[in-house]
């Protein structure tokens, strides 16, 4: 399997490209096609919302674009390099250096404090001044006073803000967010989205988020609509950048 190439992106290559992605699940009975020939291109710095009802294949598409899972057919490229053929190690290094994640259920490590959760990817990426960076990010998301708290001692909104700080820590080129406000009330969700926009603008990160919430999707420049595993349509919002 080819190794991960940490070289900068190829000129003119889209940040993310997918060609004819197919994903079939065979676990427990008859095969099920979750994605069926999805293609897309996302430019660097863009913000994209993948929208669709439950079971439309949004999260599966996100997992394939992020290298968390492998397609049954088709290919995924990041900065012009195919990632669906990379080894597990190479994918781990790709995620470590280029990709950040925000999950609906936060997925903080329960046995790490807020600060340690943010520090871990920075330490893995061997970022100089990791501690300072982690503290700055937590301050930026308004958790300056909660750094030494464990996830179980934080509210849902606070946990998601820690997750944001963790995701932006290593300054990833791409941020994938899976229903980032799905577990939050409207007000908290709005504040998290505001933070997400702010950090993204500051860091110049490409954002791909999955949501079924129209208001959340409206904040993205591009909206891709999925239905039954197929790309139904793409909308571009010229106002949002």
């Amino acid at each position: 399997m080819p190794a991960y190439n940490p070289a900068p992106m190829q000129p003119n290559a889209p940040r993310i490209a997918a060609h004819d992605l197919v994903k079939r699940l065979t676990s427990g009975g008859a095969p099920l096609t979750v994605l069926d020939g999805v293609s897309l291109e996302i430019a660097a710095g863009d913000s994209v919302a993948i929208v669709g009802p439950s079971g439309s294949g949004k999260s599966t598409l996100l997992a394939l674009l992020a290298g968390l899972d492998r397609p049954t057919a088709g290919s995924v490229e990041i900065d012009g390099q195919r990632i669906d053929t990379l080894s597990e190690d190479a994918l781990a290094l790709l995620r470590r250096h280029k990709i950040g994640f925000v999950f609906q259920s936060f997925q903080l490590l329960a046995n790490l404090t807020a600060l340690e959760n943010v520090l871990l990817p920075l330490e893995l990426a061997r970022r100089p001044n990791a501690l300072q960076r982690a503290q700055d990010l937590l301050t930026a998301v308004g958790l300056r006073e909660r750094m030494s708290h464990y996830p179980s001692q934080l509210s849902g909104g606070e946990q998601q803000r820690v997750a944001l700080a963790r995701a932006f820590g290593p300054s990833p080129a791409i941020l994938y967010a899976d229903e980032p406000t799905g577990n939050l009330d409207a007000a908290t969700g709005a504040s998290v989205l505001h933070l997400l926009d702010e950090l993204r603008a500051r860091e110049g990160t490409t954002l791909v988020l999955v949501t079924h919430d129209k208001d959340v999707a409206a904040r993205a420049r591009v909206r891709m609509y999925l239905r039954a595993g197929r790309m139904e349509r793409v909308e571009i919002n010229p106002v949002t950048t």
Partner: protein
Amino acid sequence: MAGTLVKAAWRESRGSSARLIFLVLCLALGTAAVSGVRALSAAIENGLREQSRELLGADLAIESRRGVPGEADLLVAATASARTTSTKSLATMASAGGRSRLVDLKAVGPGFPFHGRVVLDPPRDVSTLTPLECAVAPEVLEGLHARLGDELSIGAARYTIAAVVVEEPGRLDFSFTIGPRVMLSLAGLEEAQLEGFGRRVVERRLWAFEGNPASASIEALARRLRAELPDAAYLRVETARDAQPALRRSIERVENWLALVALLALCLGGAGVAQLVHAHLDARAGAIAVQRVIGLRPREVMWVQLVHVAGLALFASLLGAFAGSLLPFALPSLLPGVLPEAFTLRFDWLAPLYGASVGVAVALLFALPPLVAVWQVPPVRALRHEAEPLQAPRLLQWCAWGVLLVGLLLVARVEGGEWRNALAFAGALAGLAMVLWVGARLLITIAARIPRTNLPPLLLHGVAALARPGRGTAGAVVALGIGVLVVAGTWLIEGRMSSYLVNALPPEAPSAFLVDVQPDQRTDLVATLQELGAEHVRAAPIVTARLTKIDGRAVADIAAERKGDAGVDRELWVLTREQRLTFGPDLPADNEVIAGSLWNDPQRAEVSIEERFAKDLDVQVGSMLQMDVQGLSVELLVSSIRTVRWESFGINFFLQVEPGVLEQAPHQVLIAARLPAEREEAVEAAIADDYVNVTVIRVRPLLEKALALLGRLAIGVRVLGLFVVLVGIAILAGVVGTQASKRAREIGVLKALGSTRREVMLLVAVEHALQGLVAGALGGTAAFLVAHFTLSNTLDIPPQLPWLALPLMAVGAAVLAAGAGLLGSWRALHVAPIEALRS
């Protein structure tokens, strides 16, 4: 990067303290099994050693009729720091008040004995005997009609009888008894002027080592002395191990058993650890997926988990090892009278550290295969809990199993002491694991295909649960099966062995020996004894002789050739010592011919040789021995080799010659008999009156000593067996319970869907009982096979196993598994479904 991983491993220890405490406790139990067995074994071995040393009176002794060479002291001193003393003994006549008799004279140097004690009546230290005082056995007083304070003439000196010898360290070996004991000081022996003039004085040099060195190092020194000392062919080098030929086989059996139990404990601990780590990683799968998402490579995740498990194992092993090492100390108060006083208990700080090291090694080795499972955790699990597991690299899986097997072999070698045993153990364990795995796969296949319409719904779900993906049925059956093997195997072997030990001393064992009987007195004396109520009377002629040639080669040449060959553990002394032969048509009942056959060559005089003695002489069936029978040369063909149950305490000889060869040679008769305890003195008095030359040696106290030792060994074996069985059951329950505790969510869903608690309990019980049944049947069968093999091949005990107990074992394992499964699910069964779902 290493620092980050170690930090991450340390952070793994945080949170979910209840789970970690349970994990540590279970790991500690596994380690406690290993180190507890070691500690109990050490206590039993210490006890054995103490007893053996008491029989020899020292750690090491050299005996010679030519004097012990000074080089012996130099060699011993160069090896270890030791105290030393000497004794000299000879057969001589003693007289008092006009009567005289043959006595076994022993002059002792200062400090004798180093172990055990000489009990005198009135009480005093034997080393305080002045040169003109002696202590005598009661038989001397009775035979000479003498009393304390009377004078006893020996050689040129007259001694005051200052005390009666009640007890002295001595070998439990009666064939060489010459007469009753008379004790002097070394200076006192000089007064008698008995040395010189062709007297056969046996000098014995004794050493006691400082710092309680291991038996193996004393044995090594003994081998070196046999190989390097000048005149080695005329020296008898003895260690405590050689001091009890009658008990040697029993002690060897116990030693073999201890080695086996140590290995079984490893299995038990290992199988427990593997399942616990497996369950632990299952519980951490969510966190591992997140670690993968933020960029940790699989091998980095494995290092994090490995360091984490190593840290927990170290802590748990220290905890378990210390607890295990203290076990023998707790036993006397928990079960008064179980560990006999003679079992010296010493706390050895190195023992728990060693136990902890073995514990960590076992934990890490058995943790490796389940740790490879971190490769199977897909990062996408962070998005979708039900994501399909990835395939771990095959090479890595094989490597993990390979490292486990090789590591196990090494640990087994360290624990069991021999490569052969370690190889057999690792091979058998791998084979059993394979059989269990196949059995589990079969169970899963059957569970998946069973016609569902014919079963009640709860049973149906219980059976179907076995075949569901990710259920871990195969792993659980393998771990349970190995546990059943250990528990059942220990129980089977221990039961046979402890009863065999207790019955090792037959009821017909003689309680007295009559020595110095003339051939013409034999018939009358036997009849007299029987009239006086003696039972099991047996008489055997004794002819003394010396070995001159083996297969035409002079023994002096053979001794010279073998000398320096330290690798071969053969006694040179057997070549040159005075041999005692007997003759007669039949072998005693406790003898069994294992090679050749008795008296089958009408052309030549034949001899039957005891197995160990034949090994020492290096002769086989067909070898020719030339003996010097008091001046007359006799050629004897070795026509059979036989084993002797020395623990029967009967009259037995290394060499028995066929009838018609030695009858005319000058000889004496040795008679053994079992006398009723209350009539012993009367029998003795009657014989003293009618047969003045005959001495009665009472061995009842020695017999009782041996019986007590065997009884204690049996208790030791039983306690150790019981410990392994109990810990084994606890570990099995822990393993099943850990597996079951993962089911909380499923139980929550079932309850949320409307199943009653009773129904869910039944479902959990059915699933676990089926696992237990398969594991119990396969592990139990393996236990019977292992017990049969070990008893008949290693321990030399007729197996006679209760095969009918096999189905009970399977059912027992099923009940245990069901109970432990319910216990592990207890919390989930008893909380509101939503709580179980949330957790």
